[in-house]
């Protein structure tokens, strides 16, 4: 596990232990989850991030109770719930399609869970009113759910799932159907609601930006495995392997060889012969030929010197910054991102000879 950014004494809300899920049987069985173990802490905004088909939704459905693991245990506050049906788990879900009941009003949708729990009438009335207020839908309580917009349906789905005060709230790509602006708004709303309710949120998305901006911790998944768990900072700045580095943001990969250690860092020699210090990803082999990653914003294009040299292949202007694509010997392209100064070009043109200066501590040696 990556370095904890919170006190370790926090209780775990959800623990998945050695989860294996196979669809189908025998030789044709498809392994959707392959020995997945994750601990989700209380009051945490935890994100399962990965491309479609990586198993993140399967894992979420397993926590909800719609799928049962082939092997392994799922603990909720230390109790094994893997065999409980969904209606006996104090866990609620915001579905990707929202799945609002079309024959019921907004009010009745939100009250549904409390009614099923057999709560007294007065409590339900009060709770639904609180929820309507939380999601700012008071005026539309009597509307039918096919008479509200996508963004409003999203809020109702949230209110409905939060109304029974679940121990854990699961969100299955709930923002994917919204347009860009509304999605940005809802990201902030979701963070606010998580803060106000103090409920553990488990959020599934394939959008790395969404994951980085919203989460306390992120688990990056691929092909049924968890590749790395950590804070957004950990995941972005200290990616463990090539997939994580490539999936989150833009990255330069460099071939290098390890030549020694100093003060907890590895010294590596780049193809140009330049030596730099790099951090070591957890589980990375500290010897021989390795791959090093450097983020584009952690390198500078310089007229002279630098750790690497090459020729400018392309200059792309992005408003706030400029990307300079540099061809380096060995055939690889290295991208440098430079913040733009007012009324000043980046100073490089296509075909210029250029040096690349890598910031101290910016490089990380990947696990293979």
């Amino acid at each position, binding site marked *: 596990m990556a370095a904890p950014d919170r006190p370790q004494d926090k209780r775990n809300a959800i623990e998945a232990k050695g989860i294996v899920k196979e669809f189908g049987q025998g030789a044709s069985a498809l392994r959707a989850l392959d020995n997945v173990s994750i601990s989700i802490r209380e009051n945490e905004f935890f994100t399962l991030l990965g491309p479609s088909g990586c198993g993140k939704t399967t894992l979420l459905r397993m926590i*909800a*109770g*719609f799928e049962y693991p082939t092997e392994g245990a799922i603990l909720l506050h230390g109790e094994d719930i893997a065999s409980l*049906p*969904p*209606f*006996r788990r104090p*866990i*609620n*879900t915001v*579905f990707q*399609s929202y*799945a*609002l*009941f*079309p*024959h019921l009003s907004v009010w009745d949708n939100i009250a*549904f*869970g409390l009614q*099923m*729990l057999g709560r007294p009438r007065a409590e339900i009335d009060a709770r639904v009113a609180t929820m309507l207020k939380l999601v700012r839908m008071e005026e539309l309580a009597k509307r039918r759910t096919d008479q509200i917009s996508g963004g409003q349906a999203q809020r109702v789905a949230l209110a*409905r*799932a939060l109304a*029974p005060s679940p121990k854990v709230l699961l969100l299955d790509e709930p923002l994917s159907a919204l347009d860009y602006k509304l999605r940005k708004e809802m990201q902030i709303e979701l963070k606010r609601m998580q803060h106000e309710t103090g409920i553990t949120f488990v959020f599934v998305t394939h959008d790395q930006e969404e994951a980085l901006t919203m989460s306390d911790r992120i688990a990056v998944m691929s092909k049924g495995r968890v590749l790395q768990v950590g804070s957004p900072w950990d995941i972005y700045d200290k990616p463990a392997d090539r997939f994580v580095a490539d999936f989150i943001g833009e990255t330069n990969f460099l071939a290098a060889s390890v030549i020694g250690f100093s003060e907890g860092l590895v010294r590596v020699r780049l193809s140009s012969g330049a030596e730099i210090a790099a951090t070591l990803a957890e589980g990375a082999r500290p010897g021989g030929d390795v791959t090093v990653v450097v983020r584009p914003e952690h390198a500078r294009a310089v007229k002279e010197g630098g750790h690497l040299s090459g020729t400018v292949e392309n200059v792309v202007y992005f408003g706030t910054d400029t990307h300079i694509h540099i061809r380096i010997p060995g055939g690889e392209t290295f991208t440098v991102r430079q913040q733009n100064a007012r009324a000043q070009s980046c100073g490089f043109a296509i075909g210029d000879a250029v040096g690349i200066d890598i910031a101290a501590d910016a490089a990380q040696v990947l696990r293979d």
Partner: protein
Amino acid sequence: MASRFDVRSQPGFGTVAMFTFVLLYLPIATLVAYAFNASESVTVWGGFSLRWFVEASQNAAVQDAAWRSFVIALSAATMATIAATMAAIATTRTAPYPGLSAKYAFINLPLMVPEIVTAVALLIVFSRVKVWTGYSGLGYLVVAHTAFCIPFAYLPIRARLEGMDASLERAAADLYATPWMAFRRVTLPLLRPGIIAGFMLAFVISLDDVVITEFVKSGGQDTLPTYMLGQIRRAVTPEVNAIATAFLALSILIVTAFFFINRKKS
């Protein structure tokens, strides 16, 4: 050349269409017209009158048969709809497995088996059962009608279930609804239009049946269609036309209602 081909303007199309319409609807139009005939004949027009409607409605045998038809159709359609609803849920709310399509075929078998085969088969079985139990009431007809009504009720209910988002039932389960409560509070209300459509279809099919009824019924158990069949064998009066016309009106009414219920919900 091929791209110029217009399926709507083929030579002879209009003529064929006219013939079809005339052959289909002229006899029915004639039948309805002669229901209002004042004379005793079904072929010679003797002026407009509602006499045969009055006579038919006052005929004890007609009243008896109509009531029996109604009781059988109501019981058979109810039982068929319940069975069809359960079958539809069982065949749609499951992951596909080997043998599922065989089950579809099995449920819909009555649509494919010639009615006369079912009729003879039921006659043979029921005559044995009658001997063993001594019971000879309407039960046999109700059971027989239920059996062949099931696929008619099944099809619209299954269509409705397949069009329904299965995540709604998952959402109900997620919100603490037991399977029974999820069915009662979510599945059933959303399925209602399909169930009503299935029921009405089954009701009309039962009301209309001749072949199986004719074989299965005991003496004195005429339904309206078998009564009419019996009447036609003897002296034909426009009374039969009047009954048929009332029947037609009822069928159109039910089918129209069926259409509107389906349209409103989809």
